């Protein structure tokens, strides 16, 4: 599946990647995937699966999905 780590969430990827692919053998709980990716749950404000916002504790994802994760958003200049 395609994964996008928005904002500073990419900092937690070992290679600091914002976009990458992971292979899922079977549908899995989103929280389990996030823990495997090493992204702190407390830093995630928005999770979107196939561009639709989902509930972090309830969502499940599969290999064909696209996942976007974003931290809390503050101001720009």
């Amino acid at each position: 599946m395609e994964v996008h780590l928005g904002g500073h969430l990419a900092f937690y990827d070992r290679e600091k990647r914002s976009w990458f692919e992971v292979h899922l053998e079977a549908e899995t709980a989103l929280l389990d995937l996030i823990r495997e990716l090493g992204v702190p749950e407390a830093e995630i404000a928005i999770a979107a699966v196939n561009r639709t916002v989902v509930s972090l504790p309830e969502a499940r994802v599969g290999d064909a999905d696209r996942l976007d994760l974003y931290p809390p958003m503050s101001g720009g200049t």
Partner: protein
Amino acid sequence: MSHGTNGTILRVDLTAGSISSESFDEAFYRRYPGGKALAAYYLLREFRPGGDPLGPDNLLVLAAGLLTGAPISTATRFNAIARSPLTGGFGESEAGGYWGPELKMAGLDAILVTGRSPDPVYLWVKDGTAELRDARHLWGQDPPAVQAAIREELGDRLVRVLQIGRAGENRVRYAMIMNELRHYNGRTGMGAVMGSKNLRAVAVRGSRRYVDLAHDPATLAELGKRLAKQIPEHPQAWDLRTKGTPGLTDAMNAGGILPTRNFRQGAFERVDEINFAAYLELRSGTRSCYACAVRCKPAMAFSDRHTVADTYDGPEYEAIAGFGSDCAIGDLQAVARANELCNELGLDVISTAGTIAFAMECFEHGLIGPGDTDGLELRFGNADVLLELVVRIADRSGFGELLAQGSQRAAETIGGDAPSFAMHVKGQELPMHEPRGKVGVGLGYATNEAGADHLVGFHDPLFVNPESVPFRSVADLGITEPTGALDLGEKKVRIWYTSERWNSAEKVLGLCFFGPAPRSLIQVADVLTAVRAATGWDVTADELLEVGERAVNMARVFNVREGFTRADDRLPDRLFTPLENGALAGTAIARDDFEQALTNLYLLKGWDPVTGAPTEGRLRALGLEWTAAGAAGAVGRGAAGSAEPGR
């Protein structure tokens, strides 16, 4: 002299062509340490209520913060403050870069400018001495040429140049001030005030070092080194350096709070053409401000469908959303070119974009037609028209003359439903942050004395999760209870009250919004260490919050004197109607909840819930009893506040 300051303020009367300086003692600086507080003090003391913002009597204050120039990341900011020609109220805008630190190194804490020069001039400040120099040959020139000419005339390529562009010369109500071409005091039309005084530029050069002003130079230097080492390893600093504010665009869209089509919608169907991935294809690098390890400033250069040179700052999120989604333009090259034009011409990006989005909606509703717009098809998504309009606004030519007045005045002229399309507070256009998804930001838009501004307080999403890094970083400010982004209850109001005072303190200290908690690159304790080392004062977080609150109250008294009341602390009606699309489709702010939150906020601030004016008791508690007469009632506004700018 008070440590951390130069103890000197320069006074320039352009009508008389005279220059003098004055000094204050430590007791004065502890109450008004710098930046917003110092400037507001002078504006309240010396501006005659009701005076024309674009007349010679307006007082323009350029004030460095207390810590501006200290060798600490983000201690770069200075304020430009005057009566705003856009709002008629307290005008203020901050910028980073190198000019503010250089002012401090040149031996000054602030420059006060009054009067109007008969001919264009620029001010040259070097190590405490100053002179006015002829700028007739610079008037009408592009900013890079002006900067180069001044440096050549002064024989020093390291002179720091602050200046206006064509829009400032033409007194466009939302003209900005730039320094070093890449840093901008964007908001509330401070460039128009400078232009109205025939002051094209202020060049500064200094040889002092901030540490020599400090009470404890060793501690200050040690803190600066530690932060320079820590900051690059901080996740949010990494984000600002590698992605910058353009990294927000995707998140805003996903969350349903990307202002689109003049704030009708919260998601943009062509977001992939203006998002971070699109931005990466055009970005050429990043730059820094003085002594700052964050390095968040975007650099951009490309030549394709449009051409952009690496002369000015590249587009930040505000430009991308403002000219992109809010004008429904899915073309980042055109957006970047519009951003470059604003910088070249000296226009505030946010107000320019907001005013054009307003005009596009008027056009689509038939309130104006090609006969009004010089034949321009002013429809959402028309990038060519966007670029043409930016130039006409700066030159106040054709239809640009109407839009140069800002969306509020343009709406009054157009009539009909036009005022309902003007997305402003107190006449200043909304930044690209959607209050229907961040209601605390809406409280800030409504109550801020300078009109809609997104840097007045902390944004709501930072306070949802108590385990998050931003939330944990503000415990030292007394914020310990989380609350939802859409909550308008008492917890949110308390958070907002604290955050507004803290952000105001940052404007007094000269720290960038991107540094201290809740961004948390610099912890509250580090800010206290910096102030203590700079000044020798045993300050606490509570004292800094009070310093921030004092500055807010001075701005509020200024507005009360000009006739502003609670009725001016209002959001555009559109925000009380549902968003049309996106993740928050159907979401609106509940008007009753908002009004109750406003009342609760006034009560916390010690302001009269009916009038919105500070009570005498609160002013006295803040040591502002000398302003109480002004807070008692309006003196001005009226004709002077709405006067058309002369040419």
